[in-house]
């Protein structure tokens, strides 16, 4: 195995990395924190460089683009409460107030454009919220602690966790399985816990803290108020809470992994109970070493 160290913002590095390569797993992404340009630069510009480089190389058989659940609008879904691969993507990601969402939507669009216009063969995989040792943050789908107290917003919602090993298996399969070019696969584990179950376990196994539950109707209204104030005040408060974000993160939703199981033969190798256990142990270790 050869390891190349480079920067995807450099086309020359991309050329080096893609020379004579037939299968590319593109996992690099820029979260960009709160900066749209940073996230865009590190997700979209880098993806364009990589795709252009593959055209020079000319021997690509498949480009596996690792996307995210963040690209879904979670509104006007075909199967009402169920989010699957047919669910519509965010049509105005710039209005979500989420740099990561904006960048990932544009990254997917870039891959589709190169497929349509330049014939790049692709598979898109969209993992849910990846957990595993090394990650300590509680998913925003469960709640937020921006205001000094943990606001529990998920309630009875299922949280679309995927354990890192299971996710890696799925990504590998997406590159290897023949006959799936042009397909999109959501990656989410079985037996998903509800937000409330997860929070209870987290408090029991990692650390105790106070949380305050906000019912969905209230959180929706608060998002509406925040969005309105942000618009009226010309961004005095940034539009990070808004109705689009509410639909994406806190609306009651179920998740399907039927397609990836059926087409790729994927099964979560690590069951949810064990996955959560490993995640909590990782959180405890990080807390002890901090």
């Amino acid at each position, binding site marked *: 195995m050869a390891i190349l160290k480079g920067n995807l913002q450099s086309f020359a590095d991309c050329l080096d990395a893609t020379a004579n390569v037939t299968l590319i797993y593109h996992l690099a992404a820029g979260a960009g924190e709160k900066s*749209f340009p940073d996230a865009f630069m590190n997700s979209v510009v880098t993806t364009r460089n990589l795709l252009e480089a593959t055209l020079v190389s000319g021997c690509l058989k498949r480009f596996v683009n690792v996307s995210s659940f963040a690209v879904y609008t979670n509104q006007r879904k075909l199967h009402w409460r169920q989010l699957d691969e047919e669910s519509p993507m965010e049509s105005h990601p710039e209005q979500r107030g989420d740099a990561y969402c904006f960048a990932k939507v544009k990254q997917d669009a870039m891959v589709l454009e190169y497929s349509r216009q330049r014939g790049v063969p692709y598979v898109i995989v969209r993992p849910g919220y990846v957990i595993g040792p090394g990650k300590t943050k509680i998913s925003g789908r469960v709640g937020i602690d921006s205001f000094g107290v943990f606001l529990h917003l998920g309630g009875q919602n299922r949280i679309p966790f995927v354990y890192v090993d299971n996710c890696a298996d799925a990504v590998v399969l997406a590159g290897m399985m023949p006959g799936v070019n042009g397909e999109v696969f959501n990656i989410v584990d079985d037996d998903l816990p509800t937000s409330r179950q997860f929070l209870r376990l987290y408090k029991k196994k990692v650390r105790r803290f106070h949380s305050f539950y906000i019912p969905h109707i209230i959180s929706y209204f608060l998002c509406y108020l925040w969005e309105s104030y942000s618009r009226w005040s010309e961004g005095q408060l940034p539009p990070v809470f808004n109705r689009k974000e509410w639909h994406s993160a806190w609306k009651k939703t179920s998740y399907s992994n039927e397609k990836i199981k059926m087409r790729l033969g994927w099964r979560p190798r690590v069951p949810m109970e064990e996955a959560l256990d490993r995640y909590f142990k990782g959180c405890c270790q990080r807390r002890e070493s901090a």
Partner: protein
Amino acid sequence: MLKVGIVGCGKIADAHVSQIQRIKSCKICGVCDQEPLMAGQLFERAVVERCFDDVREMLRQAKPDVIHITTPPQSHFEIGKICLESGCHIYVEKPFTVNEDDARALISMATERGLKITVGHDEQFCHAARRMRELVRTGYLGDRAVHMESYYCYELDSSGYTGALLGDKNHWVRALPGRWLHNIISHGIARIAEFMKDDFPSVTAHGYVSPLLRSMGEKEIVDELRVIISEGQCTSAYFTFSSQMRPAIRQFRIYGSANGMILDQDQETLIMLRGEKYKSYLEKFVPPVLIAKQYIHNLCLNVRSFGANDFHMKSGMKYLTESFYKSIKDEAAVPIPYREIILTAKIMDDIFQQLNTPRSDGRVSPTQFAESKMRV
């Protein structure tokens, strides 16, 4: 109505767009970035007329009156020159240029053409800073500034900008003469330059790579800096930049011959320090009450500004931009005097020259020091 163009569509350009759009008498006629995707993303998110990937093309087609240059500093001079040659006023993000010579050349060019320039020292135009300037103007400090202390701290973390800088040995910030410091300290230095009377103050700098960065394998990025600036026998200043001290303050203290002031950038507070002392025990009881009263007054001002929808995180940028546009329209004085821009560049040049030069007294430069630590 002023037509405004933006060159460089990175992170800081977002702040420029949002603050320019709060000013009524102007419109953004174009955004430009040599990477068309970056220009396109800003065009899509902001309400602007057009986007370009060539600055000359934007100048030719959109015909802006003012250009905001928000590219990396190495390109400020060249882009500024192109804009001035086409008759545009320019707002250049900090640091103004990579050295004093370029700063002087750009300002001369603008002056010869009857055009105006400003630099993005927007923190000097936040609410508290404007209150401070007004007090100085009314003579609160006395006849002169005796001493100043400017603290500009920055919390290092492994994400975002810092992570990118530390992880990328070819990051553009590393190519600046003062590397990371060059891209950050001008806000804190400019505060001192504003109140310096001498054009050639003496500068003594001491900097080093912090133990934290050394433990991460970094040996180039100086992240601890202490500077003494003095002019003749009149005014002196300390400048402190630190990534390690806590709290990571951004504060400016100025002491005159009569009174003093403390400006806190993060808390947006301005505390006036009375020059005369109270007698005996009164000094221990009265000033704390008066200072508490001032903090409450500052709180009220901040709440009032927020309620009046005038307390944006980058509100200083709006005031600076507005003042700059006004100076163009009314042919009035620019908000930041050119002397101050040049003096800031000069002080920074002196600092970086000292940090990058092996010391004559046999002590090692910060970079050499870090390298020796790495070998150990």
